[in-house]
């Protein structure tokens, strides 16, 4: 556990350093790139001081870290507002979207996986497997427009984009959750099939439990571990997927904030968004690890 904690700290430190270095990768003078060539010398000097660019790289990094520790992400160059405020308004929207996507992923993927496992070898299993394997390879920037075309343009039953009505969240959440549900379907099917041949399942059947009890109470519980791992690992692509999905559906979250900041060359905002998404991912991974220990006594007891 201590080893995990140390590796967690080094990764967080690495993520901080890499996002810090981003701004130094800007070709030429970052201040000129951000403000444009027409900016006055005074404006440039102010921004340079604000970003700490007139100091050594080491002291810049120190400044960056101490500001972050105080929850200060700096100012947005474009709107002059503190970046923390931007994040506070945008992050909940992303979280809402990601959680609903997670819910869709698990809610569709796991039952479908159970169904496929119970029908193993039949045509239903084949259809489910092929669809989930092949369509999970399709990227969000493909799935989003296709769903939009079908449900918003042709059927006209859901809003095209924006956040105006409560049903606006459905299409982006489907886009985001689809990949997860496809992968979960496969994973649930495989791990359930493995478990179903075990002795304890035969015992459960022999003592006269109904098939429903055998599957839900005994088999699924044992098959849960790999499913949790996959959910944890996939949270990463879910978070990264918000960048594309939010852009497609004009969903005002962190992902869209990131893309907007890139278009406006508002690098401090870009930096903050990248950092936030990466850190969320790292934290989710640690939580998955903890959950894993909680579910599996073998790991908890250190076997």
């Amino acid at each position, binding site marked *: 556990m201590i080893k995990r904690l140390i590796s967690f700290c080094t990764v967080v430190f690495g993520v901080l350093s890499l996002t810090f270095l981003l701004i130094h990768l*800007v070709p030429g003078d970052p201040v000129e790139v951000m403000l444009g060539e027409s900016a006055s010398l005074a404006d440039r000097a102010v921004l340079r001081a604000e970003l700490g660019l007139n100091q050594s790289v080491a002291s810049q990094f120190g400044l960056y870290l101490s500001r972050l520790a105080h929850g200060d992400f700096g100012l947005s160059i474009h709107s002059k507002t503190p970046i923390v405020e931007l994040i506070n308004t945008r992050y909940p929207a992303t979280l809402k979207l990601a959680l609903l996507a997670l819910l869709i992923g698990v809610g569709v993927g796991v039952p479908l996986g159970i169904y496929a496992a119970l029908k193993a070898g039949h045509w239903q299993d084949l259809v489910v497997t092929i669809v989930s394997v092949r369509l999970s390879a399709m990227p969000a920037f493909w799935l989003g427009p296709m769903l939009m075309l079908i449900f918003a343009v042709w059927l006209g039953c859901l809003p095209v984009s924006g956040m105006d009505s409560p049903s606006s969240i459905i299409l982006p959440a489907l886009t985001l959750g689809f990949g997860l549900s496809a992968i979960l379907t496969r994973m649930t099917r495989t791990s359930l099939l493995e478990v179903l041949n075990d002795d304890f399942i035969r015992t459960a059947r022999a003592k006269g439990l109904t098939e429903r009890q055998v599957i839900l109470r005994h088999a699924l519980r044992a098959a849960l571990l790999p499913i949790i791992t996959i959910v944890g690992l996939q949270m990463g692509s879910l978070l990264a997927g918000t960048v*594309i999905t939010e852009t497609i559906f004009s969903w005002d979250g962190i992902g869209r904030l990131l893309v907007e900041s890139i278009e406006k060359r508002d690098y401090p905002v870009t930096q903050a968004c990248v950092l936030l998404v990466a850190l969320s*991912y790292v934290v989710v991974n640690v939580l998955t690890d903890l959950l894993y220990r909680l579910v599996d006594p073998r790991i908890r007891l250190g076997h």
Partner: protein
Amino acid sequence: MIKILAYGILLFWLLAVVLGRLFQLDPNQIDLNAILSTPSQVYWLGNDDLGRSILARLLHGVEVSLLVALSVTAVTMTVGVLIGMLAGFYGGRVDQFLMQVTDVFLAFPGILLAIAFAAVLGPGLLNLMIALSLTGWVSYARLTRGQTLSLRDRQHVLAALSLGASVPRLLGKHILPLLTSVLVVEATYSLASVMIAEASLSFLGLGIQAPNASWGAMLRDGVRYMLVAPHYVLIVGLSLMSLILAINLGGDSLRDRLDVRQEAD
């Protein structure tokens, strides 16, 4: 059956690109009378928002995308394999440090890091390739490191070592050949994932810029004009689907043939 379909689709696109070149379809020719028009006898797949032929731009886009994918894969594979072999062979501190670096890179989910690099480097073809290369070497390094670690203590490697073979010779002549099939399979998949990453970045406006065509950018334009010209987004979407499915199916059959089991790292 599915395999034939996959190779068929790949062959179809290849043939289409060659024919497009042969008949000199111009992806940048503007026809102001045909803006966003539906498929016709002159323009088989219709026209985009500037009246350019969608077919010509699709074919041009495949070429650019393939060029990007091939060069990025070549660079990332070389760098990744080199780093992975060194880490796996030497072990110890070198290995620990290099793996910590890859851990940091892997802490950025999906294409987030590529987006960040592309953002600060600025849009454009070369910067896009740099951004994708900066992030793409990690998976090769992890894969090669694991394989090298298990191959290091093989008898033939120890024999060569005791005969006084130099490290470059050991790595190049005794370990690398055993990695070939794993790397070939990994390369097919990464070819597909680089193409998707390129299209994603271009979709966000960070990748390939006009007048060059990219399927990602076309899809974005298609979304923009979805209400007036749904055929645009549909055609690009279906083309993209066919190509990605074909590449993945092809990769699967290649994996089966070379009998490589996917390593869970």
